[in-house]
Protein backbone atom coordinates (compact mmCIF):
# COMPACT_ATOMS: atom_id res chain seq x y z
CA UNK A 1 0.00 0.00 0.00
CA UNK A 2 1.53 3.29 -0.96
CA UNK A 3 1.47 6.06 1.48
CA UNK A 4 -0.73 8.89 0.17
CA UNK A 5 1.27 11.94 -0.91
CA UNK A 6 0.71 15.08 1.09
CA UNK A 7 -1.41 17.86 -0.41
CA UNK A 8 0.89 20.18 -2.41
CA UNK A 9 1.48 23.62 -0.96
CA UNK A 10 -0.81 26.15 -2.62
CA UNK A 11 1.09 28.19 -5.18
CA UNK A 12 1.19 31.93 -4.76
CA UNK A 13 0.44 33.36 -8.12
CA UNK A 14 -2.71 32.75 -10.12
CA UNK A 15 -4.88 31.50 -7.22
CA UNK A 16 -7.93 33.46 -6.20
CA UNK A 17 -7.45 34.98 -2.80
CA UNK A 18 -10.91 33.94 -1.74
CA UNK A 19 -10.10 30.26 -2.11
CA UNK A 20 -6.97 30.55 -0.02
CA UNK A 21 -8.87 32.36 2.67
CA UNK A 22 -11.58 29.74 2.62
CA UNK A 23 -9.05 26.93 2.98
CA UNK A 24 -7.23 28.69 5.79
CA UNK A 25 -10.53 29.42 7.45
CA UNK A 26 -11.71 25.82 7.36
CA UNK A 27 -8.40 24.51 8.72
CA UNK A 28 -8.53 27.06 11.52
CA UNK A 29 -12.07 25.99 12.27
CA UNK A 30 -11.01 22.38 12.56
CA UNK A 31 -8.13 23.36 14.83
CA UNK A 32 -10.43 25.38 17.03
CA UNK A 33 -12.98 22.59 17.22
CA UNK A 34 -10.24 20.10 18.02
CA UNK A 35 -8.84 22.38 20.68
CA UNK A 36 -12.27 22.77 22.24
CA UNK A 37 -12.81 19.00 22.41
CA UNK A 38 -9.36 18.55 23.92
CA UNK A 39 -9.97 21.28 26.46
CA UNK A 40 -13.21 19.70 27.59
CA UNK A 41 -11.63 16.27 27.92
CA UNK A 42 -8.72 17.73 29.84
CA UNK A 43 -10.95 19.45 32.35
CA UNK A 44 -13.05 16.33 32.81
CA UNK A 45 -10.17 13.92 33.27
CA UNK A 46 -7.67 16.07 35.15
CA UNK A 47 -9.55 16.25 38.39
CA UNK A 48 -10.22 12.52 38.23
CA UNK A 49 -6.55 11.83 37.57
CA UNK A 50 -5.54 13.78 40.66
CA UNK A 51 -8.00 11.96 42.85
CA UNK A 52 -6.96 8.56 41.46
CA UNK A 53 -3.29 9.30 42.02
CA UNK A 54 -3.78 10.45 45.59
CA UNK A 55 -5.88 7.35 46.32
CA UNK A 56 -3.29 4.97 44.88
CA UNK A 57 -0.53 6.69 46.85
CA UNK A 58 -2.47 6.32 50.04
CA UNK A 59 -2.99 2.63 49.29
CA UNK A 60 0.75 2.15 48.78
CA UNK A 61 1.51 3.93 52.04
CA UNK A 62 -1.05 1.89 53.97
CA UNK A 63 0.37 -1.32 52.54
CA UNK A 64 4.01 -0.45 53.14
CA UNK A 65 3.43 0.55 56.74
CA UNK A 66 0.70 -2.02 57.36
CA UNK A 67 -1.59 0.65 58.72
CA UNK A 68 -4.83 -0.12 60.43
CA UNK A 69 -8.08 1.65 59.55
CA UNK A 70 -7.77 4.17 62.38
CA UNK A 71 -4.39 5.50 61.25
CA UNK A 72 -3.91 9.14 60.31
CA UNK A 73 -1.34 10.48 57.88
CA UNK A 74 0.34 13.86 57.90
CA UNK A 75 1.79 14.92 54.58
CA UNK A 76 4.85 17.17 54.56
CA UNK A 77 5.84 18.74 51.26
CA UNK A 78 9.43 19.87 50.96
CA UNK A 79 10.46 22.69 48.68
CA UNK A 80 13.68 24.41 47.80
CA UNK A 81 13.60 28.16 47.17
CA UNK A 82 16.70 28.66 45.03
CA UNK A 83 16.24 32.41 44.78
CA UNK A 84 16.35 32.96 48.53
CA UNK A 85 18.46 29.89 49.40
CA UNK A 86 15.81 28.58 51.74
CA UNK A 87 14.04 25.29 52.35
CA UNK A 88 10.30 25.38 52.97
CA UNK A 89 8.26 22.62 54.61
CA UNK A 90 4.46 22.57 54.40
CA UNK A 91 2.84 20.05 56.70
CA UNK A 92 -0.85 19.20 56.93
CA UNK A 93 -2.96 16.18 57.83
CA UNK A 94 -4.18 14.33 54.76
CA UNK A 95 -7.10 16.08 53.18
CA UNK A 96 -6.78 19.26 55.24
CA UNK A 97 -6.82 22.64 53.58
CA UNK A 98 -4.39 24.48 55.82
CA UNK A 99 -1.34 23.42 57.70
CA UNK A 100 1.93 24.59 59.16
CA UNK A 101 4.69 26.15 57.09
CA UNK A 102 8.29 26.13 58.27
CA UNK A 103 11.10 28.02 56.57
CA UNK A 104 14.74 27.19 57.14
CA UNK A 105 17.99 28.67 55.86
CA UNK A 106 20.31 26.23 54.13
CA UNK A 107 22.46 26.16 57.24
CA UNK A 108 19.57 24.66 59.22
CA UNK A 109 18.55 27.79 61.07
CA UNK A 110 14.82 28.29 61.52
CA UNK A 111 13.68 31.45 59.77
CA UNK A 112 9.95 31.42 60.10
CA UNK A 113 6.85 29.51 61.03
CA UNK A 114 3.28 30.18 59.97
CA UNK A 115 -0.09 28.69 59.25
CA UNK A 116 -0.44 28.42 55.50
CA UNK A 117 -2.86 27.18 52.90
CA UNK A 118 -1.84 24.17 50.86
CA UNK A 119 -3.54 24.72 47.54
CA UNK A 120 -0.99 24.82 44.73
CA UNK A 121 0.86 27.81 43.38
CA UNK A 122 4.29 26.43 44.15
CA UNK A 123 5.55 26.86 40.62
CA UNK A 124 4.69 30.56 40.59
CA UNK A 125 6.47 31.08 43.88
CA UNK A 126 9.60 29.65 42.30
CA UNK A 127 9.67 26.67 44.64
CA UNK A 128 11.23 23.44 43.49
CA UNK A 129 9.73 20.28 45.01
CA UNK A 130 12.15 18.11 46.96
CA UNK A 131 9.73 15.26 47.52
CA UNK A 132 7.17 14.50 50.17
CA UNK A 133 7.27 12.85 53.57
CA UNK A 134 4.24 11.02 54.93
CA UNK A 135 4.14 10.58 58.70
CA UNK A 136 1.71 7.90 59.81
CA UNK A 137 0.28 7.92 63.32
CA UNK A 138 -1.58 4.99 64.76
CA UNK A 139 -3.38 6.32 67.81
CA UNK A 140 -0.79 8.29 69.73
CA UNK A 141 2.39 6.71 68.47
CA UNK A 142 4.23 7.09 65.21
CA UNK A 143 3.56 4.07 63.01
CA UNK A 144 6.23 5.00 60.54
CA UNK A 145 7.36 7.24 57.71
CA UNK A 146 7.10 7.00 53.95
CA UNK A 147 9.46 9.20 51.98
CA UNK A 148 9.18 9.92 48.28
CA UNK A 149 12.44 9.76 46.35
CA UNK A 150 13.66 10.06 42.79
CA UNK A 151 16.70 8.80 40.99
CA UNK A 152 17.98 8.57 37.46
CA UNK A 153 17.63 5.03 36.15
CA UNK A 154 18.90 3.48 32.95
CA UNK A 155 16.19 4.88 30.72
CA UNK A 156 14.51 7.66 32.65
CA UNK A 157 13.58 8.83 36.13
CA UNK A 158 12.66 6.18 38.73
CA UNK A 159 10.29 7.34 41.49
CA UNK A 160 9.93 5.29 44.64
CA UNK A 161 8.65 5.25 48.21
CA UNK A 162 10.86 4.25 51.15
CA UNK A 163 9.04 3.15 54.28
CA UNK A 164 10.77 3.49 57.67
CA UNK A 165 9.54 2.54 61.11
CA UNK A 166 9.74 4.83 64.14
CA UNK A 167 13.33 3.75 64.74
CA UNK A 168 14.23 4.57 61.12
CA UNK A 169 14.73 0.93 60.13
CA UNK A 170 13.61 0.17 56.59
CA UNK A 171 10.18 -1.45 56.37
CA UNK A 172 10.12 -1.60 52.60
CA UNK A 173 10.76 0.06 49.28
CA UNK A 174 8.27 0.37 46.48
CA UNK A 175 8.99 1.66 42.98
CA UNK A 176 6.12 3.91 41.88
CA UNK A 177 7.18 4.98 38.41
CA UNK A 178 9.85 3.80 36.01
CA UNK A 179 10.55 3.23 32.35
CA UNK A 180 13.11 0.47 32.57
CA UNK A 181 13.27 -2.50 30.22
CA UNK A 182 10.92 -5.33 31.09
CA UNK A 183 12.78 -8.46 32.11
CA UNK A 184 15.89 -6.44 32.95
CA UNK A 185 15.72 -3.03 34.63
CA UNK A 186 12.04 -3.46 35.40
CA UNK A 187 12.94 -6.28 37.78
CA UNK A 188 13.83 -3.64 40.36
CA UNK A 189 10.10 -3.07 40.71
CA UNK A 190 9.45 -6.67 41.73
CA UNK A 191 8.73 -7.71 45.32
CA UNK A 192 11.75 -10.00 45.51
CA UNK A 193 14.22 -7.24 44.60
CA UNK A 194 12.56 -4.62 46.75
CA UNK A 195 12.43 -7.10 49.62
CA UNK A 196 16.21 -6.84 49.95
CA UNK A 197 15.83 -3.50 51.65
CA UNK A 198 13.52 -4.83 54.34
CA UNK A 199 14.89 -4.98 57.84
CA UNK A 200 18.03 -2.95 57.24
CA UNK A 201 18.89 -0.62 60.08
CA UNK A 202 19.26 3.10 59.60
CA UNK A 203 23.05 2.79 59.75
CA UNK A 204 22.95 0.01 57.18
CA UNK A 205 20.75 2.11 54.97
CA UNK A 206 23.20 5.00 55.00
CA UNK A 207 25.99 2.80 53.62
CA UNK A 208 24.04 0.72 51.11
CA UNK A 209 25.96 -0.66 48.20
CA UNK A 210 25.40 -3.03 45.29
CA UNK A 211 27.18 -6.22 44.35
CA UNK A 212 27.05 -8.22 41.14
CA UNK A 213 27.41 -11.49 43.03
CA UNK A 214 24.50 -13.85 42.52
CA UNK A 215 21.89 -13.96 45.26
CA UNK A 216 22.02 -17.08 47.45
CA UNK A 217 19.13 -19.40 46.68
CA UNK A 218 17.89 -19.65 50.26
CA UNK A 219 17.67 -15.87 50.51
CA UNK A 220 15.78 -15.69 47.22
CA UNK A 221 13.24 -18.23 48.46
CA UNK A 222 12.87 -16.30 51.70
CA UNK A 223 12.31 -13.02 49.84
CA UNK A 224 9.56 -14.53 47.73
CA UNK A 225 7.77 -15.42 50.94
CA UNK A 226 7.94 -11.84 52.17
CA UNK A 227 4.88 -10.94 50.14
CA UNK A 228 2.73 -13.66 51.63
CA UNK A 229 3.59 -13.75 55.30
CA UNK A 230 2.97 -11.03 57.88
CA UNK A 231 6.31 -9.51 58.92
CA UNK A 232 6.34 -10.92 62.44
CA UNK A 233 5.85 -14.45 61.16
CA UNK A 234 8.39 -13.98 58.40
CA UNK A 235 10.95 -12.71 60.89
CA UNK A 236 10.47 -15.67 63.17
CA UNK A 237 10.94 -18.08 60.29
CA UNK A 238 13.79 -16.35 58.46
CA UNK A 239 15.34 -14.29 61.26
CA UNK A 240 18.69 -15.95 60.89
CA UNK A 241 18.83 -15.36 57.16
CA UNK A 242 17.81 -11.74 57.63
CA UNK A 243 20.63 -11.22 60.12
CA UNK A 244 23.11 -12.69 57.70
CA UNK A 245 21.90 -10.82 54.63
CA UNK A 246 20.98 -7.41 55.98
CA UNK A 247 24.64 -6.51 56.33
CA UNK A 248 25.44 -7.66 52.80
CA UNK A 249 25.21 -5.31 49.84
CA UNK A 250 22.13 -5.46 47.68
CA UNK A 251 22.32 -8.13 44.98
CA UNK A 252 21.89 -6.55 41.57
CA UNK A 253 19.54 -7.90 38.93
CA UNK A 254 21.55 -9.91 36.41
CA UNK A 255 22.11 -7.74 33.36
CA UNK A 256 20.61 -4.65 35.01
CA UNK A 257 23.38 -3.35 37.25
CA UNK A 258 22.74 0.27 36.36
CA UNK A 259 19.07 0.14 37.35
CA UNK A 260 19.82 -1.78 40.56
CA UNK A 261 22.53 0.66 41.52
CA UNK A 262 20.32 3.64 40.72
CA UNK A 263 17.56 2.46 43.03
CA UNK A 264 19.96 1.50 45.81
CA UNK A 265 21.80 4.81 45.76
CA UNK A 266 18.48 6.58 45.55
CA UNK A 267 17.20 4.79 48.64
CA UNK A 268 20.43 5.54 50.45
CA UNK A 269 20.48 9.26 49.77
CA UNK A 270 16.73 9.57 50.43
CA UNK A 271 17.11 8.00 53.88
CA UNK A 272 20.16 10.13 54.72
CA UNK A 273 18.46 13.34 53.71
CA UNK A 274 15.27 12.42 55.51
CA UNK A 275 17.03 11.79 58.80
CA UNK A 276 18.72 15.18 58.69
CA UNK A 277 15.58 17.07 57.69
CA UNK A 278 13.36 15.22 60.14
CA UNK A 279 15.68 16.17 62.98
CA UNK A 280 15.11 19.82 62.06
CA UNK A 281 11.38 19.62 61.53
CA UNK A 282 10.00 17.16 64.05
CA UNK A 283 10.45 19.18 67.25
CA UNK A 284 8.53 22.05 65.66
CA UNK A 285 5.66 20.02 64.25
CA UNK A 286 4.90 18.32 67.53
CA UNK A 287 3.91 21.56 69.23
CA UNK A 288 0.49 22.97 68.68
CA UNK A 289 0.76 26.41 67.02
Amino acid sequence: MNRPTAAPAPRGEGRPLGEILRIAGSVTLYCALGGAILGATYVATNRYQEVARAASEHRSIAQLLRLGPDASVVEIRQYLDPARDQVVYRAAPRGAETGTELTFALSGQLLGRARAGLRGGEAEEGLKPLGRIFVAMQGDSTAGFVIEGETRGYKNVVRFFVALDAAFDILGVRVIEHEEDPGLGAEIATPWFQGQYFGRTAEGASTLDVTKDPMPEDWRAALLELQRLPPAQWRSRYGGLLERESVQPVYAVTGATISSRALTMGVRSTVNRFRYRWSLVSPLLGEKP
Partner: protein
Amino acid sequence: MARRMRARAAAGALAAAVAALWAGGAAAAAAPVIENARMLAPHHVLVQLGQPVADLSPGNFRVTEALAPDVAMEVTEVTVRPDGKLWLTLAQTVSPQNHYRLEIHRPRAVREVKPAAWALLLSVVLSASLINNFVFTRYLGLCVFFGVSKRQDTSIGMGITFTVVMVASAMLSWAIYTYVLSPLDLRFLQVLVFIGIVAFLVQLVDTVLKKLNRLLHQKFGIYLMLITTNCIILAVPLLNASANAGPWEALALAVGSGAGFAIALFLMSCAREKAELARVPKSFEGLPIAFALTGLFALAFMGFAGLNPFR
Protein backbone atom coordinates in the same frame (compact mmCIF):
# COMPACT_ATOMS: atom_id res chain seq x y z
CA MET B 1 59.56 64.96 11.86
CA ALA B 2 59.23 66.43 15.34
CA ARG B 3 55.46 66.29 14.98
CA ARG B 4 55.64 62.56 14.22
CA MET B 5 57.87 61.98 17.22
CA ARG B 6 55.50 63.92 19.41
CA ALA B 7 52.54 61.88 18.08
CA ARG B 8 54.36 58.64 18.73
CA ALA B 9 55.25 59.77 22.24
CA ALA B 10 51.63 60.69 22.91
CA ALA B 11 50.42 57.30 21.67
CA GLY B 12 53.02 55.56 23.81
CA ALA B 13 51.97 57.51 26.88
CA LEU B 14 48.33 56.70 26.22
CA ALA B 15 49.09 52.99 25.87
CA ALA B 16 51.13 53.02 29.06
CA ALA B 17 48.30 54.74 30.93
CA VAL B 18 45.78 52.18 29.74
CA ALA B 19 48.08 49.33 30.69
CA ALA B 20 48.61 50.78 34.13
CA LEU B 21 44.92 51.20 34.67
CA TRP B 22 44.30 47.65 33.53
CA ALA B 23 46.93 46.17 35.81
CA GLY B 24 45.72 48.30 38.68
CA GLY B 25 42.18 47.24 38.02
CA ALA B 26 43.15 43.62 37.92
CA ALA B 27 45.03 43.91 41.16
CA ALA B 28 42.14 45.74 42.75
CA ALA B 29 39.62 43.06 41.71
CA ALA B 30 40.25 40.10 44.01
CA ALA B 31 41.19 36.75 42.51
CA PRO B 32 38.50 34.18 43.35
CA VAL B 33 39.17 32.17 46.50
CA ILE B 34 38.34 28.90 44.74
CA GLU B 35 39.93 28.84 41.28
CA ASN B 36 38.80 25.36 40.41
CA ALA B 37 37.29 22.33 42.09
CA ARG B 38 36.84 18.78 40.87
CA MET B 39 35.11 15.75 42.29
CA LEU B 40 37.16 12.58 42.28
CA ALA B 41 35.41 9.32 42.94
CA PRO B 42 34.87 7.83 45.36
CA HIS B 43 35.35 10.21 48.29
CA HIS B 44 37.48 13.18 47.32
CA VAL B 45 37.41 16.77 46.19
CA LEU B 46 40.43 18.45 44.62
CA VAL B 47 40.42 22.21 45.13
CA GLN B 48 42.71 24.76 43.54
CA LEU B 49 42.79 27.96 45.55
CA GLY B 50 43.22 31.46 44.14
CA GLN B 51 43.73 33.01 47.53
CA PRO B 52 45.20 31.48 50.68
CA VAL B 53 42.83 29.93 53.20
CA ALA B 54 44.09 30.05 56.74
CA ASP B 55 41.58 27.77 58.42
CA LEU B 56 42.04 24.25 57.08
CA SER B 57 39.82 22.49 59.60
CA PRO B 58 37.03 20.33 58.12
CA GLY B 59 34.45 22.60 59.80
CA ASN B 60 35.44 25.45 57.52
CA PHE B 61 34.31 23.56 54.45
CA ARG B 62 30.81 22.61 53.37
CA VAL B 63 29.99 20.25 50.50
CA THR B 64 26.39 19.69 49.43
CA GLU B 65 24.65 18.04 46.51
CA ALA B 66 22.89 20.48 44.22
CA LEU B 67 19.69 18.48 44.58
CA ALA B 68 19.81 18.82 48.39
CA PRO B 69 21.72 21.98 49.30
CA ASP B 70 20.46 21.88 52.88
CA VAL B 71 22.01 18.50 53.70
CA ALA B 72 25.74 18.92 54.31
CA MET B 73 28.06 16.05 53.50
CA GLU B 74 30.57 15.24 56.20
CA VAL B 75 34.12 16.42 55.47
CA THR B 76 36.44 14.13 57.39
CA GLU B 77 39.85 15.39 56.41
CA VAL B 78 41.57 18.31 54.67
CA THR B 79 45.16 17.96 53.48
CA VAL B 80 47.42 20.17 51.40
CA ARG B 81 49.15 18.52 48.48
CA PRO B 82 52.72 19.35 47.46
CA ASP B 83 51.44 21.39 44.51
CA GLY B 84 49.41 23.62 46.82
CA LYS B 85 46.01 22.16 45.99
CA LEU B 86 43.63 21.09 48.73
CA TRP B 87 42.55 17.49 49.05
CA LEU B 88 39.23 17.02 50.87
CA THR B 89 38.05 13.62 52.01
CA LEU B 90 34.33 13.04 52.45
CA ALA B 91 32.47 10.43 54.42
CA GLN B 92 30.00 9.81 51.59
CA THR B 93 30.64 8.80 47.99
CA VAL B 94 30.60 11.35 45.23
CA SER B 95 30.51 11.06 41.47
CA PRO B 96 32.11 13.46 38.96
CA GLN B 97 28.93 13.38 36.95
CA ASN B 98 26.72 14.89 39.62
CA HIS B 99 26.29 18.52 40.50
CA TYR B 100 27.64 19.73 43.86
CA ARG B 101 28.24 22.94 45.73
CA LEU B 102 31.48 23.66 47.61
CA GLU B 103 31.52 26.40 50.23
CA ILE B 104 34.28 27.83 52.40
CA HIS B 105 33.19 29.83 55.41
CA ARG B 106 36.33 31.88 56.11
CA PRO B 107 37.05 33.56 53.70
CA ARG B 108 33.59 33.31 52.22
CA ALA B 109 33.52 31.48 48.88
CA VAL B 110 30.99 29.40 46.96
CA ARG B 111 31.69 27.29 43.90
CA GLU B 112 29.40 25.04 41.84
CA VAL B 113 31.12 21.80 40.89
CA LYS B 114 29.63 20.03 37.91
CA PRO B 115 30.72 18.30 34.74
CA ALA B 116 31.57 20.57 31.84
CA ALA B 117 28.56 21.56 29.78
CA TRP B 118 30.11 20.26 26.61
CA ALA B 119 30.71 16.89 28.24
CA LEU B 120 27.08 16.66 29.29
CA LEU B 121 25.81 17.53 25.85
CA LEU B 122 28.23 15.17 24.16
CA SER B 123 27.01 12.38 26.41
CA VAL B 124 23.41 13.17 25.39
CA VAL B 125 24.40 12.99 21.73
CA LEU B 126 26.25 9.71 22.26
CA SER B 127 23.36 8.29 24.19
CA ALA B 128 20.77 9.21 21.58
CA SER B 129 22.84 8.01 18.64
CA LEU B 130 24.50 4.85 19.95
CA ILE B 131 23.54 3.70 23.42
CA ASN B 132 19.82 4.32 23.12
CA ASN B 133 19.66 4.34 19.35
CA PHE B 134 16.12 5.23 18.37
CA VAL B 135 15.75 2.44 15.87
CA PHE B 136 17.59 -0.44 17.49
CA THR B 137 16.92 0.20 21.16
CA ARG B 138 13.74 2.26 21.26
CA TYR B 139 12.14 0.72 18.16
CA LEU B 140 10.93 3.99 16.72
CA GLY B 141 10.99 5.12 13.12
CA LEU B 142 10.69 1.58 11.86
CA CYS B 143 7.91 2.60 9.51
CA VAL B 144 10.22 4.55 7.28
CA PHE B 145 13.30 2.56 8.18
CA PHE B 146 12.28 -0.54 6.32
CA GLY B 147 11.08 1.29 3.27
CA VAL B 148 14.14 3.44 2.67
CA SER B 149 16.98 1.19 3.74
CA LYS B 150 16.98 -0.97 0.66
CA ARG B 151 19.73 0.95 -1.07
CA GLN B 152 22.68 2.93 0.10
CA ASP B 153 21.99 6.16 -1.76
CA THR B 154 18.38 6.39 -0.58
CA SER B 155 19.56 5.74 2.96
CA ILE B 156 22.10 8.52 2.89
CA GLY B 157 19.60 10.91 1.33
CA MET B 158 16.97 10.12 3.92
CA GLY B 159 19.46 10.34 6.76
CA ILE B 160 20.57 13.85 5.83
CA THR B 161 17.06 15.15 5.14
CA PHE B 162 15.76 13.67 8.34
CA THR B 163 18.49 15.13 10.54
CA VAL B 164 17.95 18.60 9.14
CA VAL B 165 14.18 18.52 9.61
CA MET B 166 14.58 16.81 13.00
CA VAL B 167 16.78 19.56 14.41
CA ALA B 168 14.58 22.34 13.05
CA SER B 169 11.33 20.85 14.28
CA ALA B 170 12.71 19.82 17.67
CA MET B 171 14.00 23.32 18.40
CA LEU B 172 10.80 24.98 17.21
CA SER B 173 8.72 22.55 19.25
CA TRP B 174 10.90 23.14 22.29
CA ALA B 175 10.49 26.89 21.96
CA ILE B 176 6.72 26.72 21.66
CA TYR B 177 6.41 24.20 24.50
CA THR B 178 8.62 26.21 26.86
CA TYR B 179 7.33 29.67 26.12
CA VAL B 180 3.70 29.09 25.17
CA LEU B 181 2.27 25.74 26.24
CA SER B 182 3.92 25.38 29.63
CA PRO B 183 3.28 28.82 31.09
CA LEU B 184 -0.32 28.81 29.89
CA ASP B 185 -0.92 25.30 31.27
CA LEU B 186 -1.84 24.02 27.83
CA ARG B 187 0.39 20.97 27.96
CA PHE B 188 -2.42 18.68 26.87
CA LEU B 189 -2.20 20.26 23.42
CA GLN B 190 1.36 19.10 22.91
CA VAL B 191 0.57 16.23 20.52
CA LEU B 192 -1.51 18.48 18.29
CA VAL B 193 1.03 21.28 18.30
CA PHE B 194 4.09 19.08 17.69
CA ILE B 195 2.62 17.22 14.75
CA GLY B 196 1.41 20.53 13.38
CA ILE B 197 4.92 21.93 13.55
CA VAL B 198 6.30 18.90 11.76
CA ALA B 199 3.72 19.10 8.98
CA PHE B 200 4.28 22.83 8.62
CA LEU B 201 8.07 22.50 8.51
CA VAL B 202 7.95 19.70 5.98
CA GLN B 203 5.77 21.81 3.70
CA LEU B 204 8.02 24.82 4.22
CA VAL B 205 11.22 22.94 3.46
CA ASP B 206 9.59 21.37 0.44
CA THR B 207 8.45 24.70 -1.00
CA VAL B 208 11.69 26.49 -0.23
CA LEU B 209 13.81 23.73 -1.66
CA LYS B 210 11.75 23.64 -4.84
CA LYS B 211 12.27 27.37 -5.34
CA LEU B 212 15.94 27.42 -4.39
CA ASN B 213 17.48 24.33 -5.90
CA ARG B 214 15.49 22.12 -8.23
CA LEU B 215 18.20 19.50 -8.37
CA LEU B 216 18.32 19.10 -4.62
CA HIS B 217 14.55 19.05 -4.49
CA GLN B 218 14.41 16.25 -7.01
CA LYS B 219 16.90 14.29 -4.98
CA PHE B 220 15.52 14.81 -1.50
CA GLY B 221 11.93 15.82 -2.04
CA ILE B 222 10.50 12.34 -1.83
CA TYR B 223 12.01 11.78 1.58
CA LEU B 224 10.38 14.87 2.99
CA MET B 225 6.93 13.43 2.54
CA LEU B 226 7.91 10.30 4.41
CA ILE B 227 9.23 12.20 7.37
CA THR B 228 5.79 13.20 8.60
CA THR B 229 4.94 9.63 9.51
CA ASN B 230 8.27 8.88 11.09
CA CYS B 231 7.63 8.19 14.75
CA ILE B 232 10.98 9.65 15.80
CA ILE B 233 10.12 13.12 14.57
CA LEU B 234 7.29 13.21 17.07
CA ALA B 235 9.01 11.25 19.83
CA VAL B 236 11.92 13.65 20.28
CA PRO B 237 9.80 16.74 21.08
CA LEU B 238 7.65 14.59 23.38
CA LEU B 239 10.73 13.34 25.22
CA ASN B 240 12.13 16.85 25.51
CA ALA B 241 8.83 18.07 26.87
CA SER B 242 8.49 15.32 29.46
CA ALA B 243 12.07 15.83 30.65
CA ASN B 244 11.73 19.65 30.75
CA ALA B 245 14.93 19.86 28.75
CA GLY B 246 16.86 23.09 28.29
CA PRO B 247 17.64 24.41 24.80
CA TRP B 248 21.06 22.78 24.53
CA GLU B 249 19.80 19.41 25.74
CA ALA B 250 16.95 19.55 23.27
CA LEU B 251 19.41 20.33 20.49
CA ALA B 252 21.74 17.56 21.58
CA LEU B 253 18.90 15.04 21.61
CA ALA B 254 17.74 16.13 18.16
CA VAL B 255 21.23 15.92 16.68
CA GLY B 256 21.89 12.59 18.36
CA SER B 257 18.65 11.04 17.22
CA GLY B 258 19.12 12.26 13.66
CA ALA B 259 22.67 10.93 13.60
CA GLY B 260 21.57 7.64 15.12
CA PHE B 261 18.82 7.23 12.55
CA ALA B 262 21.24 8.00 9.72
CA ILE B 263 23.76 5.47 11.07
CA ALA B 264 21.06 2.84 11.41
CA LEU B 265 19.80 3.47 7.88
CA PHE B 266 23.26 3.31 6.38
CA LEU B 267 24.26 0.11 8.16
CA MET B 268 20.97 -1.51 7.27
CA SER B 269 21.27 -0.58 3.61
CA CYS B 270 24.70 -2.17 3.38
CA ALA B 271 23.34 -5.38 4.84
CA ARG B 272 20.20 -5.44 2.76
CA GLU B 273 22.06 -4.92 -0.49
CA LYS B 274 24.02 -8.02 0.34
CA ALA B 275 20.88 -9.88 1.36
CA GLU B 276 19.31 -9.18 -2.03
CA LEU B 277 21.96 -11.37 -3.60
CA ALA B 278 21.73 -14.17 -1.08
CA ARG B 279 19.49 -17.21 -1.14
CA VAL B 280 16.67 -16.56 1.29
CA PRO B 281 13.83 -19.02 2.06
CA LYS B 282 10.71 -18.04 0.16
CA SER B 283 8.62 -17.18 3.19
CA PHE B 284 11.33 -14.91 4.48
CA GLU B 285 11.77 -12.90 1.32
CA GLY B 286 11.33 -9.18 1.65
CA LEU B 287 10.38 -7.89 5.05
CA PRO B 288 10.91 -10.91 7.32
CA ILE B 289 14.59 -11.15 6.45
CA ALA B 290 14.90 -7.39 6.90
CA PHE B 291 13.48 -7.77 10.39
CA ALA B 292 15.91 -10.55 11.16
CA LEU B 293 18.80 -8.35 10.01
CA THR B 294 17.54 -5.54 12.19
CA GLY B 295 17.45 -7.96 15.10
CA LEU B 296 21.09 -8.78 14.55
CA PHE B 297 22.00 -5.10 14.47
CA ALA B 298 20.00 -4.51 17.63
CA LEU B 299 21.96 -7.28 19.31
CA ALA B 300 25.21 -5.67 18.24
CA PHE B 301 24.12 -2.25 19.47
CA MET B 302 23.39 -3.72 22.89
CA GLY B 303 27.14 -3.74 23.27
CA PHE B 304 27.01 0.04 23.71
CA ALA B 305 24.96 -0.23 26.90
CA GLY B 306 26.65 1.42 29.82
CA LEU B 307 29.15 3.24 27.60
CA ASN B 308 30.43 6.24 29.51
CA PRO B 309 33.58 7.94 28.26
CA PHE B 310 33.44 10.61 30.94
CA ARG B 311 33.79 8.45 34.00
